[in-house]
């Protein structure tokens, strides 16, 4: 059977979840993997909870329905934990990576995520300290690379260099590279 890594992104409209899903797809492309990235199609309002999906595989992906049972859940905004069941459909052992300053174990206990592998990474702070803007998606992709091992850190860094390098100054590219690297280094599990 085909092995497909299925990722679900939770964010609020405007926080860059669709961009994160897309960037992850671009990294997969650069690693010669097959991929799919798509938002949950619906009315998008800035600040409202939204969902996006990424599938990654070594073989062509020919299933196009929404991801029901993600192996990885990435939460760009910790306030969503009170508003959305981010672990819906996940099985035991599913990985949940949350943008949060909180200790992963404490957060998992508080949010009732027994049986999940919960990780936190202070992605907003990292983004502010590196890029200078509160866009947590870049450090979260670094965290995903570390936790999942689906692609190497170098692969993510190369992709950021290539894609941002076309449009932005070396300074901006360097800040994003730092954001990815720090996301990779600072993600911590329970």
């Amino acid at each position: 059977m085909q092995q497909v890594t299925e990722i679900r992104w939770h964010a609020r409209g405007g926080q860059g979840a669709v961009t994160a899903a897309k960037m992850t797809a671009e990294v997969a492309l650069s690693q010669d993997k097959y991929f799919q990235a798509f938002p949950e199609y619906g009315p998008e309002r800035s600040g409202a909870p939204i969902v996006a999906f990424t599938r990654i595989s070594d073989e062509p992906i020919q299933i196009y329905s929404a991801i029901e049972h993600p192996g990885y859940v990435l939460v760009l905004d910790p306030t969503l934990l009170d508003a959305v069941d981010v672990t819906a459909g996940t099985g035991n052992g599913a990985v949940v990576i949350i943008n949060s300053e909180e200790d992963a174990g404490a957060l998992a206990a508080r949010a009732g995520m027994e049986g999940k592998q919960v990780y936190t990474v202070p992605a907003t702070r990292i983004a502010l300290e590196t890029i200078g803007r509160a866009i947590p998606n870049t450090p979260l992709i670094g965290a995903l690379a570390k936790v999942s091992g689906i692609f190497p850190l170098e692969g993510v860094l190369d992709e950021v260099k290539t894609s941002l390098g076309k449009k932005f100054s070396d300074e901006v590219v360097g800040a994003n590279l730092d954001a990815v690297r720090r996301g990779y280094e600072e993600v911590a599990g329970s």
Partner: protein
Amino acid sequence: MSRKAMTGNGAIALALKQVDPDVMSAYPITPQTEIAQNYAQFVADGAVKTEYIAVESEHSAMSAAIGSCAAGARTITATSSQGFALMWEMLFIAASLRLPITMPVITRALSGPINIHCDHSDSMGGRDCGWIQLYGEDAQEGYDNAIQAFRIAEHADVRLPVMTMIDGFIISGAIGPLEVLQDAQVKQFVGEFEPLHPLLDVANPVTVGAFDSLGGWYFEHKVTQNQAMARAMQVIEDVGREYGELTGRPYSHFKTHMIEDAEIVLVAIGSAAGNVKTMVDKLRAQGKKVGLLKVRTFRPFPTEQIRAALSGARVIGVMDRSDSFGAQGGPLFTEIRSAMFEAEPRPQIFNFIYGLGGRDLFPDDIEGAVALLEKAAAGEEVAQTRHYLNVREG
């Protein structure tokens, strides 16, 4: 060839850019798709030489395309959903004037209730307007079909407009891998456009769209349209084979997966074919003799070839993403069942309507459909012919 990450909309816009036709007429706001938006950007950036006509409605978009193509220009437009419905009147005229316009269609539901999501009600509603219809599963097939459409439409044996479909949002808005040809390869494949009796050939004046009444040739005209459709069968195959030599991705009227020894075959069109294929692989691993036939050419309908391909099946499940109210089943179902009427022995055929208004088609839904077909194959009585997948009760 290079590999890119692109949405279905982006892939098709890129294919059109690489062809760089003379004219695009399009209605620039909703229910238009990003294809027209992206193409307008190419025009604004000077990346193409195309004359872009921003019109005030989809009816006007098709009217302008007709005028432009009749004048002698290689002409495109793009549409979706309500826009397709508003073009309706002019679609027939484009076909009857034998104008080789090509048009990508992002298939989406028709109102009402208001809904913008994936569904085949738009293009399936237009199946008898005289256009050739090619359906793609993913962005790659959308890209490939959009390129081949020019060769098919403009072929001297055909001279009919061609619409190429991909599923709204599910494919049009999703990012996936795309093998991209070089611009020069695409240009060489489609070749130069040679207009037939163009209006702008003032040395040889012609009348286009004249009145053709009781004493005239209207009836004969319709017969020749159907003859052109019949000739298109071979041209679609030839172009698909030649495209395969260029890209390694040959195309025909349909594609089969695991049907040689299959007792149960699901027939699907559009992205659902991928979902079904994934489930077929899973069920095959369990030893179940299940297969898939994915339809690409819906008009002209490849009746004989499909009948031959399905001849070994005992039970067939036909998946339709649009319903046909008061009819015996969805559009694909009625075609398949009609084609299999002459098969000996005649298989049992069921219809599964799914995905209306963007409702998801999950693996469980397909597994449920196969379970029902297995019952029929085992000789159990299955009361209804038409079934709805993932529909809520009451």
